[in-house]
């Protein structure tokens, strides 16, 4: 079953465990600056929004890459960068409408979310359920369920 990251900003406390987990998985150290998921805080922290690559089906980055370094992992659905092929031209970073690809200044290639090979560590580390790893075809299920429960409560009064 294809799975997808689902982000619910209302549950995010901006603890950054996701950024720590991502950098540890990919770099072996704790370093939010090199995470592929970032949490954005607004209004003195009243709101926090985790954001990362959404793994577009027709990915702009993949189409833009002149050396075909970005390919689809058909097991996970992730658009993955092959660091051996990447020449660091950053055209993919320009093409991505969301800014979800960034240049890795140490390795001189681009870096993006690869869904950790099917076991995303950001979701595993999230203590509040703001980031979950669920059935890609039913990403709205829990939110719909919450509304259904609310509707039930309204109807039964």
């Amino acid at each position, binding site marked *: 079953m294809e799975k997808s990251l689902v982000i619910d900003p209302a549950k995010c*406390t901006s*603890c950054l465990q996701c950024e*720590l987990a991502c950098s540890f998985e990919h770099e*072996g*150290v704790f370093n939010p600056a090199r995470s592929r998921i970032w949490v954005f805080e607004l209004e003195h922290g*009243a709101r926090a929004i985790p954001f990362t690559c959404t793994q577009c089906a027709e990915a702009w980055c993949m189409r833009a890459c002149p050396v075909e370094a970005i390919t689809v992992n058909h097991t996970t659905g992730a658009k993955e960068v092959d660091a051996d092929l990447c020449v660091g031209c950053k055209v993919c970073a320009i093409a991505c409408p969301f800014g979800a690809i960034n240049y890795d200044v140490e390795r001189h290639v681009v870096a993006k979310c690869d869904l950790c090979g099917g076991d995303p560590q950001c979701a595993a580390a999230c*203590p509040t359920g703001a980031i979950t790893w669920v059935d890609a075809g039913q990403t709205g299920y829990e939110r719909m369920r919450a509304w259904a429960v609310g509707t039930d409560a309204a109807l039964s009064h």
Partner: protein
Amino acid sequence: MGWQRKILRVNLTEGRCTVEPLNMDWAFAYLGERGLASKYLMEGMDPKADPMGPENLLIFVTGPLTGTMASTSGRYAVVTKGPLTGAIACSNSGGKFGAEFKFAGYDLLIFEGRAANPVYLHLVDDQAELLPADEIWGSSVWDTDAWLKSRHQDSRLKIAAIGVAGERGVRYACIVNDLHRAAGRSGVGAVMGSKNLKAIAVRGTRGVGVKDPKRFMQATRDAKAALRDNRGRQEMTKLGTNAMIDAMQEFGGLPTRNFHAVQFEGVEKINPRAMMRTHVDGHRNLVTNKACFGCTIACGRIAHVDPHHFTIVNHKEYWHASGGLEYETAYAFGPLVGVDDIDALTFAGYLMNEHGMDPISFGGTLAAAMELYEMGVITDADTDGVALRFGNAEALTVMAERTGKFEGFGQILGLGSKRMCEKYGHPELFMGVKGQEFAGYDSRALQGMGLGYATSNRGACHLKHDTFAEDMEDQSGNGKAVPCKESQDRTAMVDSTGVCLFTTSAWGVDEFRAQIDAACEGEWTNERLLEIGERIWNLERQFNLAAGLTAADDTLPKRLLEVPAPGGVAAGKVCELDKMLNEYYQVRGWTDDGRPSNETLARLGL
């Protein structure tokens, strides 16, 4: 590993930044944060020096777990000689700033001397530069934060700054980071101001490594699971630290109107239930809860002041959410001054963060001023016409702003309660220890707290020991010395790791040992960690003795020693400090006059 093994030393007099290796012998003996910086302070300055003079050192310090995946790993501390107390000051903060300067590659930032003109430190990894702060001198913490991010075109900068209160030497000015987290107590912000240092703006991209990553990850997972399943932690997430206000009200340990009462009739209007209540117009004080860096507890509150409230109805600039009521703020702006207006409390809390002041000491000072006013010692002529009566919400918010901006009677309040009460000839009205005001626990009801307050190395403080369980069980002074001493040592250790004291609702020494041992070089046992805690406690004591403090300073105000509690479970009781203190000195291995004995010092390698 764990440590970055690097220090940035900033000589403000000469305008020079130099990088030094971390003294690893000290790191192994004092761990990090509170302990390690206390050692650097003891070795780096004369404890007799004027805290507001250039000889004082101002040290920002992280611990070996800061910046890692350990839960609550965002802690840093500011260690210096405190201008409120004349004792060693160690103020601990969360937010995101501490982890950031560790990611830049440093365990400690040591500021020495005094800049000729206002400056700020801009620190991005290896690049450290002191830049002119003339344009922001006189600005609030919030305006300084915005100015720095704009000036450097970098919204990712993490900033610690002082407001006007720190610039002008308000004795309890704090250092605010990330807009509403603070190294709060003992006046560390006034030291920063005395050095003409307005702010530190930092960004770090270097990361933090650990000794045994696989074992470390398992240890942090286990420890996080323990927190997740812990009932105390669950309450803290749901209700915030202000859950304590209901507990203290019920118990009768909630200091009210400068300790004249131990219960407050208005508590239902300012407790967590009041914060979570949705009003008919849809307004709700509490917006959400919020975590510091790495924290899986998230006890922090983000709140809104009602835009129709008199404090902000004509001030649209405050119609946004910001840091909400924590227990100590709710206590100090509520019962302690007799105010039950939740919006006034919340707004005064905003002002503390905006201008950089410790709410506990401000509330304590205002409470004493209110008592002086009601006694007729000070009048409207002194207060510029503001009626400083207990329960006057406007007096709270107006005086918070005037003190923050160092205007009018705010300049007197900026002295702190002890100096202000002495100035007006009523030193007995000061409710605190070693010049620092009490937190929200009355030590007639909580006897072990009284001993902890009297012996805390930074003056009255509720966070340097933990005898809650013993105090709840028994309202006498019996058997409090041993748990007080043991929890002081344990707390000194926890404060030196880089994680938050609030983890101790679920973590014992085992959890700390497992995480430290996987992160740091060497063999770490529970015994070694607790010995480090005891070493730190005695080192801090040595600093204070060298600074001129004596056993006579280990005392409490007469109101707690002679006036019986007017209600609650301890009605009719006073704090039995003398009895506890003698036993405490013995348990500590100190002489009768409160000095660590030679054997104790030798045993701890001091």
